[in-house]
């Protein structure tokens, strides 16, 4: 985060270059003898600096689509360019490195490492960088300050509330200054107050820090924070 200067909110009228270009993405899971079609012919373009809400009923393929953008899963068909990179051409190691640098992922269940403190959790992605220990510490502090938890550095996840845990998870997602934030129902496990805080932070990250945000949500109120809302229905992206 420290390297990114705060920008003013982007004017929505300015045409931004596409950061995610999904073309005819299809995904079929094979479970035992039958097939589950999770995504079918999904084409989607997301502009840099956009804030997209992805809605749809359970099992409609939202998480699957998010995973496609994060290059943790491969489609059965179709292509995906993220920041100009054909991400399915990356091998395992390259994909890991790419995720580390370009993608921040926020889970519904926070997924903090329970044995590591807030600061240690946030530091994890930086361990893969070339930063020195003191530089890492600086970045960790900045990220935690941004989510308002600079005074909880030494706390273990179990010593934090759900809302605080999710904010630590957001700090972890942004600490290596990725261009894209992917959030899978980030407020799904939170009370209204905590959810509002998280959504405020996401908005700020989008507006002030120009992060492209793709957020899966069930909640229409949460989706209201986004610029665009897209609906998935049984693997099909609604127009």
């Amino acid at each position, binding site marked *: 985060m420290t390297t990114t200067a705060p920008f003013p909110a982007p004017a929505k009228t300015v045409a931004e270059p596409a950061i995610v270009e999904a073309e005819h993405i299809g995904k079929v899971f094979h479970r035992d003898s039958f097939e589950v079609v999770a995504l079918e012919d999904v084409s989607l373009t997301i502009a840099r600096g956009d804030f997209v809400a992805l809605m749809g009923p359970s099992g409609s393929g939202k998480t699957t689509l998010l995973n496609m953008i994060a290059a943790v899963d491969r489609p059965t068909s179709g292509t995906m360019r993220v920041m100009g990179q054909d991400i399915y051409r990356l091998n*395992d190691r390259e994909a*890991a*490195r790419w*995720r580390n640098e370009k993608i921040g992922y926020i889970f519904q269940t926070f997924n903090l490492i*329970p044995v590591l403190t807030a600061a240690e959790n946030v530091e994890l992605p930086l361990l*893969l960088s070339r930063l020195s220990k003191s530089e890492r510490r600086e970045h960790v502090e900045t990220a935690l300050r941004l989510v308002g938890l600079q005074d909880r550095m030494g706390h273990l996840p179990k010593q934090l509330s759900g809302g605080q845990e999710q904010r630590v998870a957001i700090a*972890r997602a942004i600490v290596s200054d990725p261009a894209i934030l992917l959030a899978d129902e980030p407020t799904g496990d939170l009370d209204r107050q905590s959810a509002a805080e998280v959504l405020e932070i996401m908005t700020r990250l989008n507006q002030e820090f120009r992060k492209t945000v793709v957020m899966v949500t069930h909640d229409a109120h949460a989706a209201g924070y986004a610029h665009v809302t897209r609906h998935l229905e049984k693997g099909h992206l609604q127009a």
Partner: protein
Amino acid sequence: MAIPITYNLRHLRQRPGATAMTAVGIALTVAIALFILALLGGLRQAFARSGQPLNVLVLRKGSTAEVTSTVTEQQAALLRTLPGIAKNAAGQPMVSPELVVVVSLPQRNGAGPNNVTVRGLGRIGRQLRPQVHLVKGRWFHAGQREVDVSQSVARRYRHAQVGGSIRFGQGQWRVVGIFAAGNTAPSSEIWGDVHQMQGDFQRQGVFSSVLLQAASPVEASALVRRVSSDQQLELHGIHEQAYYAQQTQSGAPIELVGWVVALIMAIGSCFAAMNTMYAAVAYREREIGTLRMLGFSRPSILGCFVLESLMLAVLGWALAVVAMLPLNGLTTGTMNNATFSEVVFQIKMTPTVLGWALAFALLMGLIGGLAPAWQAARREIVSALRA
């Protein structure tokens, strides 16, 4: 940089029961390995230090031990003339024909009689073994029924004290001195005049072996070759150090049984470690998925879990070392199969022994940890996160 070690340390502490059980499982096996290694180390030291680098031992062709070897006076005289033999200050060749017999002596503590090696030798024989020195009394005189006993013989056998007399061969022998030999082979022996011994054991004109000292290491090897290749002599030469190293074979039975037990236990310990690590991997599926999502590669996940297993192994090793340390320096005896006499040696937890035990523990940790770690690394991110 990899996943930090604190991650593993805290997880190990997180489940103290499983960690302790696994570590103890490894510790038991390592303790056995430590014991064998320390035992063999002491034994090897007792034998290997016994040999002087320039000394060459000559035995009858086909004999592997002094007690079963015979060398005639004529052969001994011939050996004396070989080139490359060192001379002492008085200009005498450093050649010692010796007679070695095994006798049975009553032990002090009332336990039954035990076999002890008796060596007949001359003044040169003592000069060939500079590690041996007198601690009490004096050396035996030639032509007298006198002997010197080693410290351990003095400690363990009845009447083996200066002024006392012990009975073997044709009768009583006066003990006139006690010698120390460090932890080397003579430290289990009784020494007397070689000619007196020949008479007593009706071995006139016959020795068991001849010990030579070469003038240089090169000449020592030349002497070994020369003696062994001479068809007429019907003798064979061996570096004294090599000879005593061979005698360590007498530890072979304990060694074999010990290693078989250790191996069986090691398999158990590997499975214990494997079980623990499989449980850890299953329990931490989501964490694995998360770490991968953050950009950690499959190899770093593999390394992380292997490391954790190795940490368990190191913990087990440390427990074993602490448990076994009281045995360090303990003196014990074993039968030398070649001489049918007892060899005294110390159980020594040397850094080398501890190092090998650590290697053994790490190997168990590695074997136990590899399969679970592999499974963790192979897991697809998506399915790990859905767990």
